[in-house]
């Protein structure tokens, strides 16, 4: 006989004991992105039209490099967690698993590529100095 009511399992973090963290992570990253997004737009708008040499020097500077790195990292983590909700809503079984795995790998691949490019540009600037 059960003496524990269903309410007991649903209180606090809920019966699944997860989901609250996901929601909170989305809240924190969304607040960060409200600041980063306009700054990233400015950084990219100023970069479009530059020659390759000018572009390397431009992203060798701290402000464009840091804004771009932060936007891509925070943005893609926000993306991974956001797609997860979409996948959970629309897919089931093996398709859902494959979609989640693809989304996480894709997100981190974009982060790695952008950080690699920024690191190369930054190191180039140091070598010039």
């Amino acid at each position, binding site marked *: 006989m059960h003496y524990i009511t269903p309410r007991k399992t649903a209180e606090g973090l809920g019966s699944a004991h997860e989901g609250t963290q996901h929601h909170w992570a989305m809240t924190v990253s969304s607040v960060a992105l*409200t600041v980063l997004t306009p700054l990233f737009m400015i950084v990219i708008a100023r970069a479009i039209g530059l020659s390759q040499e000018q572009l390397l020097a431009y992203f060798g500077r701290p402000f464009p490099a840091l804004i771009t790195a932060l936007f891509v990292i925070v943005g893609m983590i926000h993306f991974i967690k956001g797609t997860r909700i*979409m996948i959970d809503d629309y897919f089931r079984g093996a398709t859902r698993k494959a979609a989640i795995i693809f989304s996480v790998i894709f997100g981190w691949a*974009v982060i790695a590529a952008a950080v690699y490019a920024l690191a190369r540009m930054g190191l180039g600037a140091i070598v010039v100095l």
Partner: protein
Amino acid sequence: MADVNRGNRPLSPHLQVYRLPIAAITSIMTRITGHALVAGILLITWWLVAAVTSPGAFAAADWVVRSWLGFIILTGSMWALWYHLLAGLRHLAYDAGYGLEIRQAQQSSRALIAGSVVLAVLTLIVFFAF
């Protein structure tokens, strides 16, 4: 058993003939803009990686960025960013318990559409003026 109360139950909307309320449209647009932004970030990341790869790789990526296709992707992404940002602010307000009445949701939906378009046009004006 199967015939009980058949004509009086709530029905889920048949999406092909049901006109979505504006709050539903702006809600699904949040998800669509968020996912569509993949195109913009891929183009920008490709462009950045190409810049540190070789002059030929950069020339190809830069050509796409400056082409009409790049203009459409980047301008669309810029609007999608504004839309998704404003929709995110609305979600923060929802979480704090504000704007949950139907009338308020309709008003914020209209503000969302108008605000994102205004911000996108302003961004384009600033971009081409400076």
